[in-house]
């Protein structure tokens, strides 16, 4: 095989179509897609779920189940036609000439083998290295992907690594045999935003060093803008537009491209706005967009707050040893205080392990807080017996992240939505049914769908059903825990708009827990930034975004990818700083915290954290 000259593409795909056999019928999920990737170049394939972007990459690797899939078209890698290769020849190409990294670093490594073994396996398999040489080379690779103390971590297992570090291991594994093409399928989607930045930079740098071609699959326009030289937009199996990233972003011709871009929240686009504003509604067929209305003044600041949290502390025990003694504690929530007013949205933001979800659960007493005080709609929450707890939960409801897992698959959606109403004995069966129909209409669904089951609905529709269920008891407060994080951008925008509609009409207060800064900027009145169980900064949305004070807030903001191709050159700190853990020894005494007032309502924690 001859090495590709700089002008000759590493990968050429012509007329690729992929079909799957479902219930005996063939359905095409990728239709006539053509593109090429040159050495040192990054091509991004962008699209929403079901667009066929991942299937395209798996077709190139020929990793689809052979009996139920059919791949047509020509795929050439470095001048060699892959279509004619036998499975055995294809194995020699996979992992050697082209390698792949996946979305889920937590599950993509074999849990029972050491990471050293998993990386050296690629080396012994393709390059025929001896065990000793493979070990030396593996250590070099681990250092190359900047895993600290590589030598001591060779014999560790995947569970001893964080998500970001596991993705580095995956990258080391993919780079082992110096492939010409790296396929990265949503490599940073499951990672926290500061870790995402590190991994993106690492891929860019390694690409430069090795002059590798990269095929980057993602749904995130911000990531595309940062990494891609050229971009291909996919929509329901078709490649609707291909061009340089600048062309696609600034002068996208296809309506879907424009719709996709318009739906992406951009950090900072709310500057100068006082109230939350709905996302623009874009017609996916024409690309015409209608600017979203801002939410009317809903906040009742002059009244008592509907939810007041004071010095809330929640800890989990860590046990070990022969008798399962307590060896430490996870300080999940540490002296958190805030108010939430009727009709207001307060967002809790932060990265994995910062305690934002535990805070939400503690307020509903889904986990038992250690100490503090929570006043919710007249209830002293931490002092309620089980009967009053049930009554209290009429005032506060929760919407979860995963709309697939949080609806009972064996219950009709009508029954699911009516269940809170009947469980609290608020009326007859017929009344419950009427209520459910009314709620479904309110969240934009047709009440005739009541007798259907959850699997018949899309992710966005299911989240609407979950919202309808949360509304069944006319709650004053809704805790929305990453409620839009799993949704595609266009659906995310619609569901956020729905939440804002509900707030305007029903004056609901939202505790909006999210890691997505751009969404938070749209929907919030106020924002609290959490780090290691503590609120490090809290204030009006404009102040937090316009004048962030705490170093962590600044770091979080800087890490958010912005859908602006002008930022392609940016490099961040590659040091591989890990998220810290809030596990503390038993004798740890939480330090006294003092907050400095920057402006009315804008407070920032003083002193170092960690």
């Amino acid at each position: 095989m001859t090495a590709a000259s700089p002008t000759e593409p590493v990968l050429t795909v012509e007329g690729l179509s992929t079909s799957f056999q479902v219930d005996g019928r063939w359905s095409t999920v990728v239709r006539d897609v053509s593109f090429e990737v040159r050495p040192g170049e990054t091509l991004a394939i962008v699209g929403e779920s079901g667009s066929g972007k991942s299937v395209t990459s798996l077709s190139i690797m020929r990793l689809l189940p052979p009996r139920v899939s059919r791949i047509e078209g020509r795929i050439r890698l470095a001048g060699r036609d892959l279509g004619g290769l036998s499975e055995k020849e294809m194995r020699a190409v996979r992992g050697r000439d082209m390698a792949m990294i996946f979305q889920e670093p937590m599950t993509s490594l074999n849990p029972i083998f050491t990471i050293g073994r998993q990386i050296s396996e690629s080396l012994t398999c393709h390059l025929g290295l001896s065990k000793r040489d493979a070990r030396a080379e593996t250590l070099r690779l681990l250092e190359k992907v900047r895993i600290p103390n590589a030598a001591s971590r060779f014999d560790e297992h995947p569970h001893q690594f964080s998500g970001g570090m596991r993705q580095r291991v995956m990258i080391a594994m993919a780079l082992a045999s110096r492939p010409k093409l790296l396929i990265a399928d949503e490599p940073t989607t499951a990672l926290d935003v500061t870790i995402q930045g590190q991994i993106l930079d690492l891929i860019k740098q390694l690409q430069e060093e090795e002059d590798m071609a990269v095929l980057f699959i993602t749904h995130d326009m911000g990531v595309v803008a940062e990494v891609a030289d050229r971009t291909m937009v996919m929509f329901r199996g078709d490649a609707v537009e291909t061009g340089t990233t600048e062309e696609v972003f600034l002068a996208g011709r296809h309506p879907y491209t424009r719709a996709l871009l318009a739906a992406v929240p951009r950090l900072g686009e709310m500057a100068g706005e006082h109230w939350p504003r709905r996302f623009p509604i874009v017609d996916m067929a024409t690309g015409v967009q209608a600017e979203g209305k801002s939410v009317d003044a809903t906040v009742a600041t002059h009244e008592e707050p509907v939810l007041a949290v004071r010095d809330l502390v929640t800890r989990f025990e860590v046990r070990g040893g022969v008798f399962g003694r307590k060896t430490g504690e996870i300080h999940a929530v540490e002296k958190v205080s805030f108010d939430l007013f009727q009709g207001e949205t307060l967002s809790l933001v932060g990265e994995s392990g910062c305690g934002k979800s535990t805070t939400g659960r503690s307020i509903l007493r889904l986990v038992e807080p250690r100490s503090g005080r929570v006043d919710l709609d007249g209830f002293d929450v931490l002092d309620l017996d089980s009967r009053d707890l049930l009554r209290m939960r009429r005032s506060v409801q929760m919407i979860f992240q995963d709309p697939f897992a949080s609806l009972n698959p064996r219950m009709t959606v009508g029954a699911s939505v009516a269940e809170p109403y009947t469980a609290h004995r608020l009326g007859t069966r017929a009344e419950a049914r009427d209520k459910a129909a009314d709620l479904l209409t309110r969240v934009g669904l047709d009440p005739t769908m009541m007798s259907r089951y959850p699997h018949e609905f899309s992710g966005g529709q299911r989240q609407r059903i979950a919202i309808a269920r949360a509304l069944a008891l006319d709650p004053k407060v809704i805790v929305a825990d990453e409620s839009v994080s799993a949704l595609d951008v266009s659906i995310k925008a619609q569901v956020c708009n729905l939440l804002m509609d509900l707030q305007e009409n029903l004056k609901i207060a939202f505790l909006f827990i999210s890691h997505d800064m751009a969404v938070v900027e749209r929907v919030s009145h106020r924002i609290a930034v959490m780090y290691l169980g503590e609120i490090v900064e809290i204030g009006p949305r404009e102040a937090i975004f316009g004048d962030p004070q705490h170093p962590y807030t600044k770091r979080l903001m800087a890490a958010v990818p912005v859908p602006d191709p002008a930022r392609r050159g940016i490099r961040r700190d590659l040091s591989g700083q890990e998220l810290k853990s809030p596990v503390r020894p038993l004798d740890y005494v939480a330090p006294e915290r003092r907050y400095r007032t920057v402006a009315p309502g804008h407070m920032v924690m003083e002193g170092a954290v960690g």
Partner: protein
Amino acid sequence: MYAFIARRLLLAIPTLLIISLFVFSLQKLLPGDPVLVMAGEERDPAVIEALREKYHLNDPVPMQYLAWLGNALQGDLGISLRTNQPVLSLIAEKLPVTLQLAVMSMTFALLLGIPMGILAAVKKNTAIDYLASVLALSGLSVPNFWLGIMLILLVSVQLGWLPASGYQPFFVDPLLSLKTMLMPSFVLGNALAASMMRHTRSSMIGVLSSDYIRTARAKGLAERSVILSHALRNAVLPIVTLSALLFGELLAGAVLTEQIFTIPGFGKLIVDAVFTRDYAVVQGVVLCTAFGFITMNLIADVLYVLLNPRMRASL
């Protein structure tokens, strides 16, 4: 790791105590009086009273329990009322027989069940998979006694290949011993092999659809190494626990098989003891079986932890 084993061993103590209490009180609640059996037809009150004194049957029940437990801890499980032999030596005599039967059945089940399970999972929804399932179902549904009798008729009576019954100690004549045990262990092991196959299949199917198997394939590994190294090591974890539990059951399940093939093992010992109200032997056998169960469970837990690095970390 050692802390984990120590903790599990400590937990075994209360379990054994509860079982011993249960075994002891069951005896007391059962109808029938061994002394009457021993005293014979005449039932001379003086003889009965003397026997009661001799075996401390007039002491308060808790005292009897403590005395019995104390002796048991020193290895003295009492004397068989029927044969006048120490219970411990009776058990020591019969246990190896049943143990050999159980080990051979288990080996047979593992050697047949696991490869068939892997094959069925890899060839999911093909003729091979269906054939394996049909075989497994027949293995589970054919009664042991019927299969045993049919095998004796065919293999021993008609073909004369293997002895129909009896037992030959392994260390006296290993080959003959294995030959004698072959049919019984097949009869006892085939239902095990079937459930082993079903479990391996479903566990393997789950593992084969996981992300790290996709990673292994993306690496360009040969399919054989993907399945036998990456997938099997993960799929076999639940099988380890299952095997240990089934092994405990084998000791109990051997009763019927030993009757069919007239093997002088544990099963025969307990059946005879129960029929003659030989309390000391029943107590000893039940305690011994419980001890075996607990030991197997402990071994399974330790193995599971050794094979599973995630568990090792949480210790």
